[in-house]
């Protein structure tokens, strides 16, 4: 079973956290910090599995992670999961995000936290893998988007927030964000 899914960037800033077992809020933050410390000090070409930190349950749990450009994707799992399987699952997750957001980058995760959660919900449910077929997941996500459009009464809702923001002032603000710092991480998985 998957105990937690954490995404954080190279500086340890969480971009998505999902716990499938109950932890108090402050414990969650500690787990994130501990996991970041364990994972970030590892070289890029060592193996993608390591034993979990003490907070997440120690030797009985494994951290399986991948590092894409600016982001770490970490799945904390128990011994009933196949390591390579989870590694593939992370890949499916990233490729799905890439399809849903068109060249996903860290910024998409920040501004569309809700959607990232919805996509994840199609992939993993209650700590168990729900669906591994990318096309199916994307189809379900798009269905949701359609529902959203019909409910808001707009038919031509652009997919990305950046393009929806018409307010001059706001787009200026967005321009200020240093996007070159955040290369599209999906380009690295080839």
């Amino acid at each position, binding site marked *: 079973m998957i105990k937690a899914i954490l995404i954080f960037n190279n500086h340890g800033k969480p971009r998505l956290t999902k716990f499938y077992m109950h932890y108090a809020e402050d414990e969650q933050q500690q787990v994130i910090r501990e996991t970041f410390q364990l994972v970030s000090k590892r070289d890029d070409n*060592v193996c993608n599995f*390591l034993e979990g930190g003490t907070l997440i349950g120690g030797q009985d749990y494994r951290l399986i992670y991948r590092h894409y450009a600016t982001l770490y994707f970490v799945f904390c799992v128990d011994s009933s999961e196949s390591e390579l399987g989870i590694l593939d699952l992370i890949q499916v997750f990233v490729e799905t995000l890439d399809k849903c957001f068109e060249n996903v980058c860290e910024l998409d995760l920040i501004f569309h936290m809700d959607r990232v*959660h919805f996509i994840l919900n199609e992939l993993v449910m209650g700590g168990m893998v729900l669906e591994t077929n990318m096309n199916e997941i994307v189809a379900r996500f798009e269905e949701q988007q359609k529902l959203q459009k019909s409910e808001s009464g707009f038919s031509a809702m652009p997919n990305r927030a950046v393009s929806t*923001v018409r307010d001059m002032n706001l787009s200026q603000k967005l321009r200020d*964000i240093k996007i070159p710092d955040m290369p599209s991480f999906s380009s690295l998985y080839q």
Partner: protein
Amino acid sequence: VKDSMRGLAVFISDIRNCKSKEAEEKRINKELANIRSKFKGDKALDGYQKKKYVCKLLFIFLLGNDIDFGHMEAVNLLNSNKYTEKQIGYLFISVLISENNELMRLVQQNLKNDLASRNPVHVNLALECIANIGSKEMAEMFAPEIPKLLVMGDAGDTVKQSAALCLLKLFRTAPEMVPLGDWTSRVIHLLNDQHMGVVTAAVSLIEALVKRNPDDFKGCVSLSISRLARIVTSSYTDLQDYTYYFVPAPWLSVKLLRLLQNYPPPEDTTVRNRLAECLETILNKAVEPPKSKKVQHSNAKNAVLFEAISLIIHMDSDPSLLVRACSQLGQFLSNRETNLRYLALESMCLLATSEFSHDAVKRHQETVVTALKSERDVSVRQRAVDLLYAMCDRSNAEEIVGEMLTYLETADYSIRGELVLKIAILAEKYASDYTWYVDTILNLIRLAGDFVSEEVWYRVIQIVINREDVQAYAAKTVFEALEAPACHENMVKVGGYILGEFGNLIAGDARSSPSTQFQLLHGKFHLCSPPTRALLLSAYIKLVNLFPEIREDIIAVLESDANLRNSNVEIQQRASEYLSLARNSTQDVLATVLEEMPPFPERESSILAQLRKKKPAVEDAIRVRGEKQQQRPASGAADGAAASAAPIAATPASGGGGGVKLQGDIAGAESNTDSDLLGLDFGGSAPAAAAGGGGAGGGSVDLLSSILDVGVSSSSSSSAAPSAASGASAQRKTVVVGAGASGSIVGEENWHKFVCKNSGVLYENDILQVGVKCDYQQSSGRIVVYYGNKTPAPLAQFASVINLPDSSLTNQLGIQVKPVGDRVGASEQVNEVITVDCMAEFFACPLLNIRFVYSGVAQSITLKLPLTINKFMQSSEMDSATFFQHWKQLSQPEQECQKIFQAKFPMDAETTKTKILGFGFSLLSNIDSNPANFVGAGIVQTKSGNIGSLFRLEPNQQAQMYRLTVHSIKPGVSKRLCELLETQI
């Protein structure tokens, strides 16, 4: 554009533009204040606005801030008909509401509605939310409902898929809540479903269910094999969407292979051959040229391959498959991909436990040793250590132990402790020459003394004492080791003990004369910690017996102020007792009292037990191999015998030994007491030690007087020992009175939850789950206790005892127990029925003590039984006049009890009402002039009469306080009811 939630985007950009942590905090606080005022404001918010603010709160939470409001608004969103609003509401709830939030009831109501919805997307949202929260309460409420969705003919694929996983999650949380029924057979047939996603989810569910009732699901074996066969023989174009980088349905294949590992190889030859074909095909594909260069392709392919190898190892019946698996893994050992090397080492560990492939694994020893030396990644090195440990046998033990010792010098600190244990175990298990064993352990202490636990050095002493042929060598070696200018304190302990026992064996050599031995030991004395000094004092008195010529030197040390008046009681007592023994006894008495230790009874190595605690799975597998090899003596008999157990020549403890054993220092290994003075133990039977209570129960015992009390167990305080002993002697008592504290009570938190309700989980740890369901009628009750074994191994010597901590309970309660069997099988659940009659009012709480042995370690758990006086209370209705009449009648000081206390839970009137009703009181309206107050009545029914009770509860919202007044006929009852109700509100 409404749905872009522009406000959210602006807010996020603001945060990202903050230059400092302080600025960020300020911005967040501003936003929180804004949202709070919006939620509190007069203007009703529409769904979109609520959604936007809830989303903002989620973002703030992600940044690591506590969110303490907004829950109600999120719950409101669930009522919305708009999918997107509902969706955000559920998202917030599954991320932020903990299972005991007071809003849970509202959430559950919404979940109920959505589950019953005709719209499958709403059903799915509800299923997701139930699974994501996955609490016991969710299980209680929804577990019986979900199987219907799963097998309903017209349910859509996605609903079936979600329902399967949702049920799985609830099953993991509270298996007893998931009912078995005819749906189970229909679940098996989901393996044939058209939709691969449904099949995958169903396999996960079945895999968990078979662990509870393997026989009910036997049918899944042949179905999974045929499904697997269809996948592995298909080309990657057949399965289209479920093909992942040219590998057909890897995820499902892995799951199916896992499921099959719950059963023995199929008996039916056709089915078995079909499975063998599948496995061969998978092994064949591994050597085919890759269809893609991408790492995803090889990952997916190998995920299936590794799982297939696990299944081959699990079946352990086909030598050719096992050997092929091994050679495949051997290739991975030198693969470029670190992940594959890691997994290959791990799988090989299991292969090494099979007799068919053990030798094949051994051929890779050199590669593994190289990995140990050259891998850059500590995780991989650790797996290499595990594998070396698993492949070790008598033929290669010296070599492997040598390599491990070399590695120990440079090993990462994080794994040194485990490495030391492994070396110690291997050295003991495969020692044919015990001088090698002694050398190895002393080397261990020299190289990594800090990581050598007590168990390790206790064990070396046990072995030296039990083996005469190594004693002289051990004495000589420790003597030499102690000559080093600096040596580890553990070395001093071992040296002291061994020289005290066997110093005479090397005294003939002028270089190690008696006084040199003594001086050498005493030279270290002042640098050591008090426990070591105490041990050395025992060694000195033993030297007095061995070498009368140095008696005066030793007396001088014993009577020095530093010892005789040491502030440490242990040292002081030893010094003064040994001093009078040395001064006043004749040589005969000394020789008798200080005789050489008799051999230790043979028992499981305590080190092994410790390692098993750390790494249960691997150790079990290795032990199983030992057992298997014994069962099949034909194959590799010599090795089998070697692997079976620690080959210590066990001489039974000699009867009537009559000598002071310095056992306290060693027997302490079994009990966890600090080394006590002397585990005095005359006569062979050693009552305390044999019962597992350890010879070290009693703190300090007067040495000389105890010598006279021959055969009396020295401990009066270790009540655990006698009760354990009585359990062993087939006189199983299930109710014990006044046994005193038998271990500390755990799970008190859960106990409180039972005051107002009658079923749920009373206690749970990694091994055991204790569930309770009770019902009460008048003065009788029936408590069913469910013991669920959560592990894949059986719990042996299972016994439960009800302790009445207060002897007056014997007259107040009549308890009868229908006991459970003495074994709880793997993942099995058994129940015990306790019937209770309430004879009279009672105030103490019976204790439930559960004992069992799990993987060789005895466990004892003491819980409070959820049995309180209010359980026998029936609510009672009356009108205002009657109420006041009773209230006035019952106002003697001992009949009345009043408490003023802080609210322990949010002061929500509805919740409080539910709790009061659950507690057993009625709620009477129109009696108190203040409608916010609660007033009611109840009658406690006992065999010796009814006890009418009345209460009044006055909440003070402002101060978050309550005033509770209870009037009752019987003294004490009102106080007890007050105490109990106080903890609940």
